[in-house]
Structures are given as structure tokens and as C-alpha cells.
């Protein structure tokens, strides 16, 4: 089983963000980066499939700045066998441009499966995986939280609103992985030391023209302090009134 996992380098969300003075982008100084959470679960899913099959390989592809080698090495420390960095210094907001660059890299790889995280926690677009599938002409199953591969067919459970759906699909295929499938493993010390010796290919990202650009960014408004309207049953009418007239949620 030959699996590719596409991962994204994203800022760690616990850090405080700031917007640059011209409002065009977030400030990079002081940020820390990691692999997108959903992509970690995708890596874990790939590693488990490989382990279960007892053979195969897991290849990681990342589009991002040169520093994203750190994230590829981490994936290797978890157990991925090799990696490719499609290098660009640009902040890319056009999902289709990213998908084209990834598809160009993946199309001749002969992968049985291409995995993505369901969504990147910074841009929240959840479009790249399906777009890559379309560009490669492969079936796509999104929001997978349970996965079983038998021979040339896969069986996946998908998350729906308040329900789940079971689908079957032929290989090769593109899947986007949801949480709930796996908690990702911690890279081991042995894995980190071995990662350094695994092949990591760096080449420029073939992004092409970008139709989407970010015009401006703003932080959400500060939340006002909470208000206690009263205590016990007496406070209920006032609370309901405020929820209707001020918060407008009822």
C-alpha cells in the first residue's frame, strides 16, 4: 500500500495573534508552528494502514516555506518514510492554486491513497482535498472517522450532522480525515533520530496564478464582560428578555 499524506504547517493557536499595521496579514514574529491537527490524524491513519498491511510506504507532501521541513521531519519521526516540500514563501489563500501544485506533485506517484486532514485549522476552507481529487480524477470521501481497506476497495464511515454514513470506494482514492479516527502517536526518540536520515525532497511549488487574495484581516472584537442579571427563578424573565432583545438568540 502506497500512501501519500498532504500536511500543512499552521500556527499554534494558543499563541496570541496580531495583525500587521497595514491590516493585510497576521504578524509572524512570536508565532510557533506545528502540523495541522487534522493532518496529524491523517498521518496516524496512514501509519496504521501501513502497519496493518505489514508493507507499504507513507510519503508526506507539504506546501509551505522552507521552515516547513520541520513539520515534514516531525511526520517522519512519527514514522513516515519520505517527504517532499513544495517550497513557497507566499501566503497562499487560493485553495485551487494549492490543489494544482499538490496534484502536479502527486499525479505520477502511483499512490493507492492520498490522505488529507478534513480542514486546516488556520484557513478553515476544507477545499484542498476534494479539489486535488477532482484534478487527479479520483474518487473522494470527506470527513472520514472510520476506515477499513480490503484489497482494492475501501470502506469509510463519514461524519454527518447528527448521523454517520458508510460508503464504499475503489482505490486509488482521496480521503479527508476527521477527528475521532485516531489520537496521533507522539514521535519517539528513535523516530526523531531516524527521521534525520530519511529522504526529504525540496522543490519549488508550481502554484500558478492565484485568483483569491486576502484584502484585509481583523481580530474579532473583544468580548464584553459577563453580566449577572439576578439569582434563582426571579431572574428568569429578565434573562429571557435579554436573550430575545439583546443577544437575539431566542
Amino acid at each position: 500500500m502506497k500512501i501519500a499524506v498532504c500536511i500543512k504547517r499552521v500556527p499554534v493557536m494558543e499563541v496570541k495573534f496580531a495583525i500587521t499595521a497595514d491590516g493585510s496579514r497576521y504578524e509572524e514574529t512570536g508565532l510557533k508552528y506545528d502540523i495541522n491537527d487534522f493532518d496529524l490524524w491523517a498521518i496516524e491513519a496512514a501509519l496504521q494502514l501501513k502497519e496493518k498491511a505489514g508493507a507499504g510506504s507513507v510519503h508526506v507532501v507539504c506546501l509551505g516555506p522552507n521552515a516547513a521541513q520541520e513539520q515534514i521531519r516531525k511526520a517522519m519521526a512519527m514514522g513516515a518514510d519520505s517527504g517532499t516540500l513544495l517550497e513557497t514563501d507566499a501566503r497562499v489563500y487560493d485553495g485551487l492554486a494549492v490543489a494544482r501544485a499538490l496534484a502536479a506533485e502527486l499525479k505520477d506517484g502511483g499512490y493507492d491513497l492520498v490522505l488529507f486532514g478534513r480542514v486546516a485549522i488556520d484557513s478553515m476552507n476544507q477545499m484542498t482535498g476534494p479539489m486535488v481529487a477532482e484534478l487527479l480524477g479520483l474518487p473522494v470521501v470527506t470527513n472520514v472517522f472510520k476506515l477499513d481497506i480490503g484489497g482494492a476497495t475501501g470502506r469509510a464511515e463519514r461524519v454527518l450532522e447528527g448521523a454517520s454514513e458508510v460508503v464504499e470506494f475503489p482505490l486509488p482514492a482521496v480521503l479527508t480525515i476527521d477527528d475521532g479516527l485516531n489520537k496521533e502517536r507522539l514521535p519517539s526518540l528513535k523516530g526523531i533520530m531516524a527521521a534525520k536520515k530519511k529522504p526529504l525532497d525540496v522543490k519549488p511549488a508550481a502554484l500558478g496564478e492565484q485568483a483569491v487574495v486576502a484584502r484585509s484581516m481583523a481580530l474579532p472584537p473583544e468580548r464584553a464582560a459577563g453580566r449577572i442579571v439576578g439569582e434563582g427563578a426571579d431572574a428568569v424573565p429578565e434573562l429571557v428578555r435579554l436573550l430575545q432583545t439583546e443577544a437575539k438568540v431566542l
Partner: protein
Amino acid sequence: MPTYRAPLDDIRFVLHDVHGVGKLAELPGFEEATPDVVDAVLAEGAKLCEEVLFPLNQSGDAEGCTYDHGTVRTPAGFIDAYRQYASGGWTGISADPAFGGQGLPEAVRFVFEEMQCSANLSFSMYPGLSHGAYSALMSHGSEELKARYLPKLVSGEWGGTMCLTEAHAGTDLGILTTRAEPTADGSYRITGSKIFISAGEHDLTDNIVHLVLARLPDAPAGTKGISTFVVPKFLPTEDGRPGAPNGVSCGSIEHKMGIKGSATCVLNFDNAIGYMVGEPNKGMRAMFVMMNGARLAVGMQGLGLSEVAYQNALAYAKERLQGRALTGTKNPDGPADPILVHPDVRKGLLRIKAFNEGARALAYWVGMLIDTEHRHPDEAVRQEAADLVALMTPVIKAFFTDLGFECTNIALQTLGGHGYIREYGVEQYVRDARIAQIYEGTNAVQALDLVGRKLPMEGGRLVRRFFSLVKADVDAAADDDVLEALAKPVGEALGRLQKATMVLAEKGFANPDEAGAAATEYLHLMGYTAIGWQWLKMARVAQARRAAGEGDAAFLGAKLKTAQFYMARLMPQTAALLAQIQAGAGTIMAPAPSEF
């Protein structure tokens, strides 16, 4: 519930910016230990500590180890955590790749040690003892013993112990009585009873490799008649599996104030088969390799516990609303101000912070010196590093654990009544920290080692090296106003330390009780001076980075403020310590036993 986050920002600052850990990669055998690898290892080691070891700390304390007919069960979760720890390669982090280790510098293991001690001191004892057994065998074991035992210790499949103490022989190992009878096949039969053996029996590993101090039949009295033996719990088969049980049994485990998840065992050796490590009657040499490493590791326990205690006390002080600031309301929207507004609360927290960060810098410096001592191509550089490690070992063990206990206690006080109850976890840190002042040579013994052995060694060369390093940094600070103000108290402390050294050289030689009476104060004086010196180094780096517009300005600003606090509030201790040393032994030795 308490929380722990490994202080990776501070760790990286100390390793990279202050001490230049990258230069270790230039030492032979450390080519892999480039800064990016060191960072990745520490980041993932931190996660292991935060997510796997820390969640078992409170539950392990509540449950403790249990003893049943010679077997010992570790607290729930320890087995799974140990499996993950060992299979990940962490048991062999700095071990020789020839025996399956990861070959990273000792300095990296030092940092990991600190994080483990913060996360779960009891758990850290098991791999810690194995590492000690590894070190002793590595330096003094025969090739055959190394081949048989080291791969298993490195992989973590087998654990290790050090069996020194007997019921009547604690600090005074010279009077121990465990016997070793030679046999025809070159092995020995070991008989005797050992107490206080950490990790002596447990359920984490398939086999346990005991390193045991014992006497040969014709051995001279005292420490010059002690030999070291490897005594496995199960005798290894030819293909390296645990075979027939050896004559070692666990008689009981101790019920202790702290480190309850660490099994402290009575071990009975009854005609057990053992193999000599090193030469007859020179067993203390092998054991000292283990003990010196263990003393540094115990110092890290003081630091690690102080760190986790600080984090939880700080979180509480920021959240706990109680009373108003003396200078007027600071939190008008709340019913009261956070207690962090109060000078006394701030002072307590800053004492801990100033100790932790300064001690971290000193410890990592020593960690890197150990690697230099082992690997540097230049003999003179190796010797200098060895001198400084020998000098600093008792200081790190005793000063870090004395201050570590004091700091966990300050942290407890910050939480008031909530510090005294179990829920918040801080009282456990106080209890766990207490043992570190006692085991691995009590802190009084460390002080005697410093004053009686390390100071006179090589005509005082060790301490002179230290003095000149401190003086060089004090002198270099004259080029910057901020640094000069920080260097002044360091220079004064150094002057006091030199004066105290003179006092000891003059009076201690004539009357050993004078040295004994001054030893602890002298060790503390050196500890405060050494950490103050590290603060001066950190301040220099912080100033330079600020001037260059590099790094996190808030972090670097806090560094400088903490350095200033250390000089203003901790360094004055050195004056009192010198006064105590100068007061001499007279008032201590004057009362007759009946007058106590």
C-alpha cells in the same frame, strides 16, 4: 488539578542563546546532535512528560506501590507509560549507539531529566536507576558483562539499581557487611541484606540488574575493602532472556512521606550469584561513577519540582481574588484583586523563578561540561571540564535540593489552605522534594565532600578555575551600565566566597571541626554565587538580543528584571553566610552533650 508545561522557551534560551549547545555537535560522536535535532528531541520529550508521565503523578502518589509476597506492583498506568517510554528509545537517550543507545549528549539528557522530575519524580526513578547502572557498567564492567547487560538496560527491557545501604551502614559505607564468596567458575556468591533500594523490585521490566556493594572474605576493613558486583534478579540465559531466579528477594517496601510511586525496597541476597565489576576491593570506583551521575540527577529533582510548583502557584496567584492591593484597587470589575498584587506573594514567586531559571542555566552548563569532559579532543580542555564538574556536583546536589524544597514550600504557601490539601497537587511536590535533600549522600555529606575533598584537590585548582571564570564575566560587564549594576553584587559574592575559602584553608586544616562547622554555609555561598554568575551571563545575552532587536522582547525584559531581583533579594544571603562561616566552630562545639 495541577498542570505542567515544560518551560521550552526558557530551555531553548539557556541551551542555544546562553550556552551555545550547537558546539556539542562538533565533538566526536555527536555529529547528529545538531540544534534542530536537540530542539525536536526536547519538544517531543516535553510532550511525553506532559501527556504521559504528568497525568500519572497525582494518581501514583495516591495509590503508591503495593507489596505482596515478594512482588511489587507500581501504581496504575506506570506499566503502559514505561512501555511507551522504553519503546520510544528514551531509556537510551544518551547511551552508546554500540549498545542500542541514541548517542545524544548528556546535556540533552539533563534537560529531559528536569522535565521528567517536574512531571513525575517517582516514575523517573526507574529509568534513572537503570541509567546509573548503565554508567557504572559502561565505565568499569568487563566486555563480557557489557555485552550481556548493557543492551538490555539501554532498551529498557531490564531495569537497574544501586544497592549500597544496609540497616547499620548508611552514610558510612565502610562498615557494610554483605559478603561475596568466590566460586570455582569465577563468579561470586552474595549474601546480605540491603535497605532503601529504589526500584529494587517492580513490575515494569522483565529483569532487574542490581549493582551490589559487598566484601570479599579477605577484604580490608573500611571503604578500601568494598567490591562491586552485578547481581541479576533472573540469571540471563545464553540467548539473553531472563532465566532461572537468582537468590534475590524483596522483603518489604517502605511507607514514605513522598515519592510513593517509587518502590523503596528491602532486598535480601541469599547466596545469590554475582559477577565482579572492576577490580577486587576497588568497588567504590565503579559505584562513584554511578553516584556522581546520580547526585547531579538528584539536583535536577530539586529544580524539576520547584519548576512545577512555581507554575501552579503562579496560576493560582493570578486567578485567586482576595482582598485589595495595598495601594488601591487593581481589579475594579472583580470582587477582589488577584493575590499577585501583594508584594509578599510576588516576592515568594520571584524567589522561585529566580532560583529555577538560574539553576537551570547552571545545570545545563554542567551538563555540557560532562560532554566536554568525555569527548573533547584537547586533554587540557577535558581536564578543566572534569575539574568543574567535580566541583559543581555537590553544589548542584545539595544547593538545588535545599532550595528546591524551600521553593516548593513557598509555592504551597502561595496557595494558602489550598496548598495544604491534596486537590491542587502542590503539597505532593513538597513531600516529594524532601527526600532529595537526604538520599544519594545527605546534603551535609555533600558539603563535606565540597570542603574536605574538592577544595584541597590538586592544590585548590578546581576552585581557582571557578573563581577565574566568574571574575572574567564580572570584569567584562564594565562595558554596559545595566550589566555593570548586576555584576557588582556578583563580584562582591565572589569576594566573600574567596574570603570564606581562605578562612577554611587556614582554620579547617588546623581543626577539622572548623571545616565541618562551615561546610553547609560554604556550599550555599558557592551556590548563590554560581547561580548569580549564571544570571549575569543570561542578562548579557538578553541585553545583546534586545539591542539587536532579536527574540521575544517580553521574555528578554522579564529575564533582566528577574536578574535584578536575584541580585537585590537573593545575593545578600552571601553576606550572612560569610558571617556565619567567620563565626567559626566555637559556639557549635562548646556545649557538652548534657547541655543540649
